[in-house]
């Protein structure tokens, strides 16, 4: 059997625990935090690598983003991806999910054939979880979201468990797209040797012109977007009372609150 042609979509995001938010202006200062690969996308990559190891095949990673997203692609190469493509162009900037999905779908079409596309369930920054299903629709292929278990994969189909609160079993015909949860697997870490090797690896860079055969540039980036972020508000340390108890009386105080509140339900 010839191997699977797997595509993994990865997004570079800021380390969410370090990024600073300006409460006054509502600005997100991305430069305040180091960039990393969206954590869920590492589970998608791990799943791809496991399929490749078991059944043979190739893993291509694609990311749309600024030039610096190259480091996430190199990290993916270090972990075992075969090929990496960066979609970068000022005309791709400011994209909402639909414009992002159009660029990614066009890039996948340009690659030629594929069997399986893997994405994270969502990102830690934009946090919509929409890009995966949108790419599937644009490519006209089935998808399953919140995949927490990959049961079987064969030449023409895949059987997965989708975590929708209750868990459902689905069989999808290939080619198909899966968005995956953190429960799916534990991503491997690249070795130092792999990291050094990946440093020298070539990353292919595509611009809007490279995608023009499949999507016009005015459907991409800010221009092609259908939603606009018009304002950002940083919720301040909120409306919480912030009463702190330390001593002996804490038990009684908390019990009082519980008794008055719980009885009222």
């Amino acid at each position, binding site marked *: 059997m010839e191997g699977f042609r797997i595509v993994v979509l990865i997004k570079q995001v800021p380390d*969410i625990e370090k*990024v600073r*938010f300006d409460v006054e202006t509502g600005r*997100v200062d991305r430069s305040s935090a180091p960039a990393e690969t969206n954590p869920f996308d590492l589970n998608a990559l791990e799943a791809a690598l496991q399929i490749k190891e078991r059944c043979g095949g190739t893993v291509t990673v694609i990311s749309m983003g600024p030039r610096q997203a190259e480091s996430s692609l190199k990290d993916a190469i270090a972990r075992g991806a075969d090929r990496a493509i960066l979609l970068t162009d000022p005309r791709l900037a400011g994209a*909402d*999910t*639909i414009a992002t999905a159009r660029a990614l779908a066009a890039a996948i079409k340009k690659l030629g054939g594929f069997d399986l596309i893997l994405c994270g369930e969502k990102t*830690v920054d934009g*946090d*919509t*979880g*929409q890009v*995966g*299903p949108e790419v599937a*629709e644009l490519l006209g292929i*089935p*998808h*399953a*979201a*919140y995949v927490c278990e990959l049961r079987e994969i064969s030449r023409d189909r895949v*059987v997965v*468990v989708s*975590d929708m*609160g*209750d*868990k*459902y*079993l*689905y*069989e*999808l015909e290939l080619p*198909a797209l899966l*968005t995956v949860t953190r*429960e799916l697997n534990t991503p491997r870490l690249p070795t130092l040797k792999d990291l050094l090797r990946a440093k020298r690896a070539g990353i292919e860079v595509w611009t809007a012109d490279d995608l023009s055969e499949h999507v016009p540039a005015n459907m991409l980036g800010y221009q092609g*977007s*259908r*939603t*606009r*972020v*018009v*304002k*950002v*508000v940083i919720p301040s340390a*909120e409306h*919480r*009372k*912030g*009463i*702190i*108890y*330390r001593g002996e009386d*804490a038990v009684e105080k*908390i*019990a009082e*609150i*519980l*008794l008055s509140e*719980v*009885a009222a*339900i």
Partner: protein
Amino acid sequence: MSGKGILVYAETRESEIHPISFELLGKAREIAEKLGLEVWSVILGSGISDKASQLIHYGADRVYAYDDERLRDLNVVAYKSVLVDFVKETKPEIFLIGATPWGRSLAPRIAAALDTGLTADCIDLQVSEDGKLIQIRPAFTGNILAHIETTSKPIMTTIRYRVMKMPEPDPSRRGEVIVRRPERVEADGVKFLGKVSERGVNLADAEIIVAGGKGLKKKEDLRILEELAGLLGGVVGVSRPLVEEGWISKDHQVGFSGNTVKPRIYIACGISGSPQHLAGMRDSGIIIAVNTDPSAPIFRHADYGVVADLYEFIPRLISFLKEVKGHGKGVVKGA
């Protein structure tokens, strides 16, 4: 089609309407009054026609029920194809979908097929003075609230469960129910093979949650929290590391990659208050935190903080509550 409408997708699970659908109808009514729209609802499934009147009671002026054996299972491609055809025909101005896992899987496919904007997981919708719909949603793992406008039609939005007020149903409300069979069900490539398991606990609906984190030293100690939860008629939640340890199932996880909850009371025991944990519980009613570290971030988000060892504090709280209950001083629900 007469008039302009705001459309609400009524989500069904095994022929029952998910309560998010009623919440959306309540919000849709409010927006409809402001923008001069009708409220429409669409429901898909097999044997669901008799449920349509409930949607009228909760605020729909007109309900379209696609009742078809081919729509019995949750097949995302099938549902997408019927809803896309429906939207193309009826041309709603606004289309609201519940941000349940199913809704968040289905909505983007529809938006992509219709080439329209979709805003994810909103916690509020407002109408601006010039009549624009402002969609408000958390992003950056709950650290910010973004205000979003859509430049295409229909404006599509998924809305988080339990953020919109549940309206009072009015059984005397009248409306039109139109039962249909879809002309086309494109279900290519997806086969539903059945339910693997039901979730063990429903945190999203819980009114009282006693949550534990890495401050717990071993799996067995979860019992302390279970006892308190039992006494209060609540359920146990946890931070992610406890799920990763395999101490408890993922159903119990609160946070960015787990459940978003909104209980009346959230008691966080031995939880530091990471951004990912806060993303799942920051909208709770009353937040109580128990932590040995006075500088733990959770205290900045708590109404009542107790700087104490949970192994001392929680058992004492339990005895105290039991004692009060024994004396019949308080009514502790569920005890």
